[in-house]
């Protein structure tokens, strides 16, 4: 029985490559894949609160790829693969593979440059090629987004690299812009003071850069007051939603109204009406 197994293991599959060599090579790659996963899990658990998520993911990928690459090179060596042969075969194979994998290589190189240049990071809120959402992962070939309405979007890295990228959270603060209309009969100075008070009382409306409130335009129906407020980028959306309503409520409490669109019509002649008043 044992002799049969030994014979089977020593049986040559191709030239000098035996079954044993093949098994060892496969085993090395499988162990490397498992080890890479274990290392990734260990690193995520250990460094979760100590390293930023995007940095951690890049480091994990780098280590994973290194482990797998070393294992594959070793396994190929076990199978008698001579890398010096690549120099000769590389010329022809390179042309063939190059044509076949043009877009893959393009994406790969773009992915490497994206990881070096880092215009986006995992977790960032971005807008790329008409897609807006959170960056879920930056892989070597493609980047995945989770749109704000929860859709999964995969974008090839080459497209990201050549497309304009809007990163909403790259800077620590972001401005909120409103235009608030009040009636012509309302006191604009008082309205500005009320709006400034509301902003001052709101914690996420930054003290510096100072908020700016001013009469921007004299509109058809109202006096338009421009409001510019800076907020921490992490609180920007919540602040934008909440502040406008607070301003509206406070203005109304002070007797000022946001007018409806209106038009004054002048008649050339006296307007004649034919109305009957019914008396009981």
């Amino acid at each position, binding site marked *: 029985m044992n002799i049969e197994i030994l014979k089977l293991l020593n049986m040559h599959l191709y030239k000098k490559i035996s079954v044993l060599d093949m098994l060892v090579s496969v085993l090395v790659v499988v162990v490397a894949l498992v080890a890479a996963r274990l290392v990734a899990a260990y690193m995520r658990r250990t460094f979760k609160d100590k390293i930023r998520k995007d940095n951690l993911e890049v480091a994990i990928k780098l280590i994973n790829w290194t482990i797998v690459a070393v294992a594959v090179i070793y396994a190929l060596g076990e199978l008698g693969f001579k890398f010096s042969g690549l120099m000769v075969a590389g010329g022809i194979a390179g042309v063939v593979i190059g044509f076949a994998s043009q877009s893959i290589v393009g994406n790969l190189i773009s992915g490497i440059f994206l990881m070096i240049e880092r215009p986006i990071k995992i977790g960032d809120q971005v807008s790329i090629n008409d897609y807006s959402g959170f960056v879920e992962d930056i892989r070597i070939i493609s980047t995945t987004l989770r749109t704000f309405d929860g859709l999964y979007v995969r974008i090839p890295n080459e497209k990201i690299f050549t497309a304009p990228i809007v990163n909403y959270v790259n*800077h*620590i*603060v972001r401005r909120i812009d409103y235009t608030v209309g009040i009636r012509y009969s309302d006191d604009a100075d008082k309205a500005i003071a009320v709006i400034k008070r509301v902003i001052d009382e709101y*914690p*996420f409306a*930054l*003290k*510096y*850069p100072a908020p700016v409130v001013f009469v921007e335009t004299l509109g058809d129906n109202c006096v338009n007051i421009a409001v510019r407020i*800076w907020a*921490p980028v*992490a*609180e920007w959306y919540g602040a934008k939603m909440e502040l406008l309503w607070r301003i509206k409520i406070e203005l109304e409490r002070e007797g000022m109204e946001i007018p409806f669109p209106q038009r004054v019509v002048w008649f050339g002649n006296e307007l004649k009406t034919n109305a009957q008043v019914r008396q009981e």
Partner: protein
Amino acid sequence: MYGTYDIPISLQSEGISLSIERRDDAVVYRRQLGDEKAEKLLLGGGSGSIVINPVEPLNLPRDLTPYLYLDFQSTVALGPKMSSTVFVTFPVEIGVFLQERGEVEILDIFTLARQKYTLYGDPRNGLLCRYWSTPVGTTAPSAGRLHEGVMELKLANGTGSWVEVNKAVFSGYGMKLFYNDDLVGMRAEMEVTGATTAQTDCRDMPLKKHMMKSLELYTARKLVVLFPKFAMTDGI
């Protein structure tokens, strides 16, 4: 309100209502401040004690930044190579801790102080800070210890010319708060190194004798403190 208590407790002060009581095998923590309520059910606790003390004012309304920006209401001018001590105020947050078998767990943080943020520096490279506007004087101001604390700030001008100081930014990682029955206090230093640059640091010394040292929130969170000093490079 500050101090160490055995469970159960029931406290009321300046609009704060706080109680911790045993219910079956659990401990129930309740706190109300205005419309804001907090309630926690603690399982497996109850033999420990409750510590209530002022903590680094950097946690509310959100844990966004570890930096505190003190905006001086009046400018301080300091002569060449001079050093002097001024008193300023800082906001106080109140931390409730459960201390049991050598372990400290944060139960709650709340504040009566005004909450506001600001940017130190420009929008591209600036630093988000908790904002506090403070009077500046050569004597300690009176401060309600549940609202604000008093900081003794030693200013040192290391330059050869007059400098004007309008603000100070501190890292929360180095803050050491002390309290007694009258006030919450902290000591800090600010060394002016240029017309627009300075380095700030908090000192591990009480403002007065026999003051109790606060349990630090960053210690309770088991964070490693690496940079307690702060280099102000965007204006002073």
